[in-house]
């Protein structure tokens, strides 16, 4: 059991969805703040689009979606069964064990 929780924790730490979510949330916030304070001149340059603000909002949304997905369906409990969205998908079966490649 101890082994299980250790592997689960490692898996969560290493969950790509949290990494992508974290990076995009941070960048998104940064760009939104920059966008709010961008000068007229800078907006003029980007064809009148406040691109920092809009791109920042988009990236923030993407980042939050990834975080939401990662925290509602933690990887540790569904290492084997990890497709998104399917209700009743990851039932935790074979949690710690990656499928054995067999062969050879």
């Amino acid at each position, binding site marked *: 059991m101890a082994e299980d929780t250790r592997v689960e924790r490692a898996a969560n*730490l*290493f969950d790509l969805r949290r990494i992508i979510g974290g990076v995009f949330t941070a960048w998104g916030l940064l760009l939104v703040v920059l966008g709010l304070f961008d000068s007229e001149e800078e907006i003029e340059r*980007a*064809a009148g689009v406040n691109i920092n603000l809009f791109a920042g909002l988009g990236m923030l949304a993407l980042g939050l979606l990834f975080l939401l997905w990662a925290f509602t369906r933690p990887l540790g409990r569904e290492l084997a069964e990890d*497709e*998104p969205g399917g209700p009743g998908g990851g039932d935790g079966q074979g949690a710690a064990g*990656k499928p054995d*490649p067999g062969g*050879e």
Partner: protein
Amino acid sequence: MNEVRLDTDFVDYAIIATYFLVVLGVGFAAKRYIKSSLDYFLSGRSLPAWITGLAFISANLGATEVLGMAANGAQYGVATVNYYWIGAIPAMVFLGLVMMPFYYGSKVRSVPEYLLLRFNKPSHVFNSVTFAVATILIAGVNLFALALVLELLLGWPLIVGIIVAAVVVAAYISLGGLSSAIYNEVLQFFVILAALIPITVVGLVDVGGWGGLQDRIKESTIGEAGLHALQGTNPGDVTNPIGATWIGIVFGLGFVLAFGYWTTNFAEVQRALSAKDLSAAERTPLIGAVPKLFLPFVMILPGMIALVAIPGLGSDQPNMEYNNAIPLLMNEYLPNGMLGVALTGLMASFMAGVAANVSAFNTVVTTDLVEPYLKRGKADEWYVSFGRYATIAGIAVSVLTALIASTYDNLMNYLQALFSIFNAPLFATFIIGMFWKRMTPAAGFWGLIAGTATAAGLFIGYKAGALSFGSDLDESMWGAGSAFVVVAIVSVVVTLMTTPKPVSELQGLVYGMANIDESVAVSHRWWESPKLLGFSVLAGAAILTILFW
């Protein structure tokens, strides 16, 4: 020079720095997780399809792809979409639905290893060596292209750019192996999109939307013909800017070059082999094909925008090469902040290209050359640590090949020449060996040698001036085509003179004898059906091609 130099500030550098820290962090996290050589070289065959699928497409989103496709968009207009909807999607679907059962089902760890099982040791060694050489050359191209952009945009000296990029990639791959490469590729995929989408949106607003862009393209150098994918490609009456007939596009580009690249390039196939089961492996290239359908809208479109928005693009003025379309747009439109994201996206795309090749290189060198032939029967940990050294050595050599690449003025053409020499003969050997049980081991070996020699001979003859072709690209098309034909002829002739392998040894390796993977029997939801996904993507490509006819 200075007119292209970006006006970066500390915010941009902060964004770039966080990205590099995360990339290295993934390497360290992956290192803790690695327990065996299978973990290191194939991610323990444990990854879900969405990850391998995005890594699959990201491995292809390297330097030449991002800059090159925008350049082609500026130069040829809409016709560039043929590289996607005809020149990639069908090959990706073929890899997923037809070839993956043999690759994944036979449990090989690499493309060359399939040749060992299907044919014999000499063909295995020959292909492993040529593959290792080719990947290092290609990794060098990506390193060089990255350094070029860093020099252009930030003023970093070329050699500094090459070495910084090489050190970062070496660090995260030697630490985390394929997992680290793949995880970073998925992250890179999103970062590249975060760079390209805003450029496209701002550009479109600036030129007055799609309608405005069409009007201004009609008045530009490529004119009305630049707005069509396949119009004006009838033989004898070619008016399309790409200068090819539909026969050349469908057979040369869509069949020989595309199928050769997508189905036998281990840097791509390795991503699918690391999937957790056969269904996920089959879906890897298919999931990758979905973004591939839509990438033209953020890769070719910016090139077309640059053609009308950047006066003098494509002229002889300094820094106005088509290849600089994306950097020039960044400079034109993006404020600090978004600029940092876009720069990070460019760096991410170059590193994705280098990483894909280097992680494939260390796998082939370790599992296909060292383990079976040079140092047999060592402990598993020995091979993992050898893989780490192979990574570092591979990157060191690719720094040198980056310097070779720096002597070519058109990188895309250099790459196409490499593909015609290394991939086209391999693809021919595969396709014949997979569908023709009788093909003998000797035929596989001699076919490969003859095909590689043919394409290499044409290339050398062309470079030495003994043979003449319409263009560099024309040479690669002919090289690939003739390599294919030579392999076919040699394979048939040698097969008729030698004895085939007993059918019992071909289980799981040839068409009609695929291994059934038990794990697939476990319930898969209907929307996870590879066939449904594959045919939907094909239909999407057909519809888009007709829309932009």
